[in-house]
């Protein structure tokens, strides 16, 4: 045997060269590997058009395409039969089968084929046991529920509001701007439902109770400021009756109705928002975090928005992707000097100082607001002026914050989030301040005053966002048309979303004190949709930079939820303290909370229950609960860190495995090409790997090479075997092709060894 240098010199660099070695034997070996044969959860099977599909080439010779499809259908059905819960004869299993069929990556004809075969197989296996009454009842319930859900989906699709309009916008501007309009629609729907409930349970009984003898006499000034005639109308808290409303023999107790409706609506909204926020956060932040961030891969595969329709948007997207590629590459090529520590500290200090300044600004605004409220003037329109000033501040501050954040050292996306958070803080601070001021002032009926304040804010903001801002947008568009060199007006998603959050925040605060406010806000959102749509379509250009929509959406949901949380906190603490004695539906009660404790639960008559409730309100149990939450958060975080270090280990293992696979495939390719000598180099000593391999694994022979894998020094026999029964569904196919391979000696039972190799790889996978 000649000394043939067989060992393939590994490239010196750690990265492999990128050419796939496409020898036929190697390809066949790769195709027979279990990882290529056993379908994944998604039942991947290639469609008929790949030439390298060794499974079907033999079959294709014999039969025509119809049979080919049949064979493939059989393979799929055989795989699905492995899952026992799919094969039962129950409606649940039917549902599972339907889902599995939907996920099949095949055409509809193949799916029908598979479905027919599957149901034949199922009916063959079903045991025909009589099902008990309970089971039948359960099936009927679940089936009925499914049918209702489907019908609801159908209904929602046919009445889906603004479907074409949003699709049109998405086609022109991309999915980020589309997501803004989806948020408008979602908030509009929620407010619509809220107003429906409020009108039904609170306003209508009050209307029935009211005596229709008041003359309608209000002027423009009353409409704007909410005072005068409007003060004692359905719009505000004070008007509502505090006793029972009696009509046609039915008695309806208003305080209970008002209290419970409001509380239930608030809590339901809070629950729905929390769920939505958590779902959005989980999908967009948690599931994608941990491990290496895939910047390039993300850009290449998820960069193109498949929903765009217009040529212009497509051109702009191409240009922006091109620019981003160039930017990323140039960033990489620049010699990245790691910034010295003092520069980084400098940047950090700048950020801290800027944040401090912003907080100081927020505090200053609040302080100014407080003093303005307290100032005693004879201006009749003083309160209106205060509201107008507050609206102005809320509109202009985001622009100030944008400017401030440009001076700081944040990445672009973090800068947006920071600005959003700061503006939110300003808005919430102002609203909380108003609430505190009015509740502490000793005016009678402070609730109505606060309700009026909320009403004025909504109205003035409507003027600004429905009239002033669109006008500015159109003027900018005009300037751009006359002078194309200036910057194109783009649809500013962050700024517009802030308007939405502000309005929603005002609504949360004002809903309790002004029930019809929700109707006003609903109408406002309705008009806002159309105004913004016209603005976007006529005055704006598609954005130059690609905007990450999903994560921004999560942040917006978080802000809306936090607004509601702050509201609940503020109102909750008010509930426990006092109640207005002179007006409103809770006149007869000490504190608003006593509507619940005295009125509904009658706790004074059940001292035991009262003591239990009082116990839970004390600091002890609350501190305990808080501590428990902290401990669970710490535990989750520890688990997450453990998982990410596990990910690092597994990635390392993957690379090593691939190297093993490559080595073995090379050996197979060489053997099948006739180069089956494996001779050690002269320089290697008797203990080298090559000599060991020859002694222990290879029987020295001139012909008939028998690759006895069981003799390998790292013996498989001692490995703990997995308990999984070896299942080789395609064994008949592999046996057939063995005879076709003319190169190898028939005594080379690499087929057996391939299963051994595969088993070895399996063993490696489950150590």
């Amino acid at each position, binding site marked *: 045997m000649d000394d043939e240098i067989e060992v393939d010199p590994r490239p010196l660099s750690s990265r492999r060269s990128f050419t796939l070695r496409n020898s036929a034997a190697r390809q066949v070996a790769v195709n027979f590997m279990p990882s*290529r044969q056993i379908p*994944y959860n998604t039942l991947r099977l290639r469609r008929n058009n790949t030439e390298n599909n060794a499974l079907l080439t033999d079959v294709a010779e014999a039969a025509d395409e119809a049979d080919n499809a049949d064979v493939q259908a059989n393979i799929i059905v055989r795989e699905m039969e492995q899952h026992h819960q799919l094969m039962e004869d129950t409606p649940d299993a039917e549902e599972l089968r339907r889902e599995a069929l*939907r996920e099949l990556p095949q055409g509809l004809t193949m799916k029908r084929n598979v479905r027919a075969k599957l149901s034949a197989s199922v009916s063959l296996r079903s045991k025909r046991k009589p099902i008990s009454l309970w089971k039948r009842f359960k099936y009927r319930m679940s089936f009925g529920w499914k049918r209702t859900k489907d019908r609801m989906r159908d209904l929602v699709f046919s009445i889906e509001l603004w479907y074409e309009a949003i699709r049109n916008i998405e086609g022109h501007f991309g999915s980020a701007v589309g997501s803004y309009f989806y948020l408008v629609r979602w908030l509009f729907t929620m407010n619509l439902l809220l107003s429906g409930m409020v009108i039904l349970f609170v306003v209508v009984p009050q209307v029935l109770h009211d005596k229709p003898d008041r003359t309608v006499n209000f002027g423009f000034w009353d409409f704007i400021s909410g005072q005068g005639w409007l003060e004692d109308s359905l719009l505000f808290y004070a008007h509502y009756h505090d006793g029972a409303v009696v009509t046609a023999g039915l008695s309806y107790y208003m305080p209970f109705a008002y209290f419970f409706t409001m509380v239930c609506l608030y809590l339901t909204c809070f629950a729905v928002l929390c769920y939505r926020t958590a779902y959005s956060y989980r999908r967009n932040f948690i599931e994608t975090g941990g491990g290496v961030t895939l910047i390039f891969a993300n850009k290449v595969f998820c960069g193109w928005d498949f929903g765009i329709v217009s040529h212009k948007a497509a051109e702009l997207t191409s240009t922006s992707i091109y620019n981003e590629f160039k930017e990323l590459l140039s960033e990489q090529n620049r010699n990245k000097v790691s910034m010295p520590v003092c520069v980084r500290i400098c940047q950090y200090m700048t950020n801290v100082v800027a944040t401090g300044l912003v907080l100081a600004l927020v505090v200053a605004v609040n302080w100014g607001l407080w003093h303005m409220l307290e100032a005693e003037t004879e201006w009749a329109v003083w309160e209106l002026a205060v509201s107008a000033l507050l609206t102005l501040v809320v509109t202009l501050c985001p622009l100030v914050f944008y400017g401030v954040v440009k001076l700081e050292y944040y990445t672009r996306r973090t800068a947006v989030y920071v600005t959003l958070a700061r503006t939110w803080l300003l808005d919430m601070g102002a609203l909380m301040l108003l609430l505190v001021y009015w509740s502490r002032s000793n005016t009678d009926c402070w609730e109505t005053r606060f309700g009026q304040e909320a009403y004025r804010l909504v109205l003035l903001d409507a003027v600004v966002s429905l009239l002033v801002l669109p006008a500015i947008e159109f003027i900018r568009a005009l300037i751009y048309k006359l002078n194309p060199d200036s910057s194109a007006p783009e649809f500013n998603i962050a700024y517009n979303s802030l308007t939405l959050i502000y309005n929603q925040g005002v609504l949360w605060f004002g809903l309790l004190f002004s029930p019809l406010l929700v109707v006003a806000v609903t109408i406002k959102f309705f008009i806002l949709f159309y105004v913004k749509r016209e603005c976007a379509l006529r005055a704006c250009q598609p954005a130059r930079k690609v905007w990450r929509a*999903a994560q921004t959406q999560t942040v917006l949901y978080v802000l809306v939820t936090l607004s509601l949380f702050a509201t609940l906190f503020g109102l909750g603490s008010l509930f426990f303290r006092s109640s207005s004695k002179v007006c409103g539906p809770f006149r007869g009660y000490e504190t608003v909370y006593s509507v619940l404790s005295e009125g509904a639960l009658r706790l004074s008559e059940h001292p035991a229950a009262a003591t239990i409730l009082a116990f839970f309100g004390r600091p002890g149990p609350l501190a305990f609960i808080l501590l428990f939450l902290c401990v669970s958060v710490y535990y989750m975080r520890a688990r997450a860190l453990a998982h990410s270090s596990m990910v690092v280990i597994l990635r390392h293992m993957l690379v090593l495995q691939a190297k093993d696979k490559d080595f073995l495939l090379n050996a197979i390719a060489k053997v099948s090409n006739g180069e089956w000598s494996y001779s050690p180099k002269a320089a290697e000593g008797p203990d080298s790997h090559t000599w060991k391999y020859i002694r222990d694994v290879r029987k020295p022979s001139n012909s008939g090479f028998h690759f006895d894998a069981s003799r390998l020094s790292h013996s498989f026999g001692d490995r703990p075997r997995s308990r999984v029964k070896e299942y080789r569904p395609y064994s008949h196919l592999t046996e057939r092709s063995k005879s076709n391979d003319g190169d190898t000696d028939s005594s080379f039972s690499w087929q057996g060894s391939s299963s051994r190799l595969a088993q070895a790889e399996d063993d490696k996978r489950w150590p």
Partner: protein
Amino acid sequence: MGQGKSQFTEEELQDYEDLTYFTKKEVLYAHQKFKALAPEKVGHNKNAKLPMAKVLTYPELKVNPFKDRICKVFSSSNDGDCTFEDFLDMMSVFSEMAPKAVKAEHAFRIFDFDGDDMIGVSDLREVIQRLCGPELKLTDSEIQQLVQNVLEEADLDDDGALSFAEFEHIIDKSSDFCHAFRIRL
């Protein structure tokens, strides 16, 4: 949406509803859109096979750089001509209700230009060139660098190409994929 109802029976609609992610009304709406591509031909035979050129006049496909790949992947005869069922399949995968795994599967097929079940270097080059559009061209070394970067980030077993598992891993980590890979009816 009412006029299309006469062309389909209730069982056919139920059949489509079972096999795709659409409701019956959405199926009818999809048929309306399909008919708009070639009204006379589809009027005669509701499951008519339209040539690829006609299918590519659909608004979202017209401006898409991967339009021919999309048609080829979903076409049952693998040459790009689509029947209504292929079109329905396409819209179902691109719809909102389709789970991420199904979309990832088809995205893999779309990006696999040479059909060897791996996204290799040539496939990546093709994808990048198509993304940048027909006018703007990156230099060869830039494309090479980009391909290298992608493989460095995503090629976990270091074999020079992306298998489906690695591609699915990329998609799992991307929060924008479902937003991007979506065509609304």
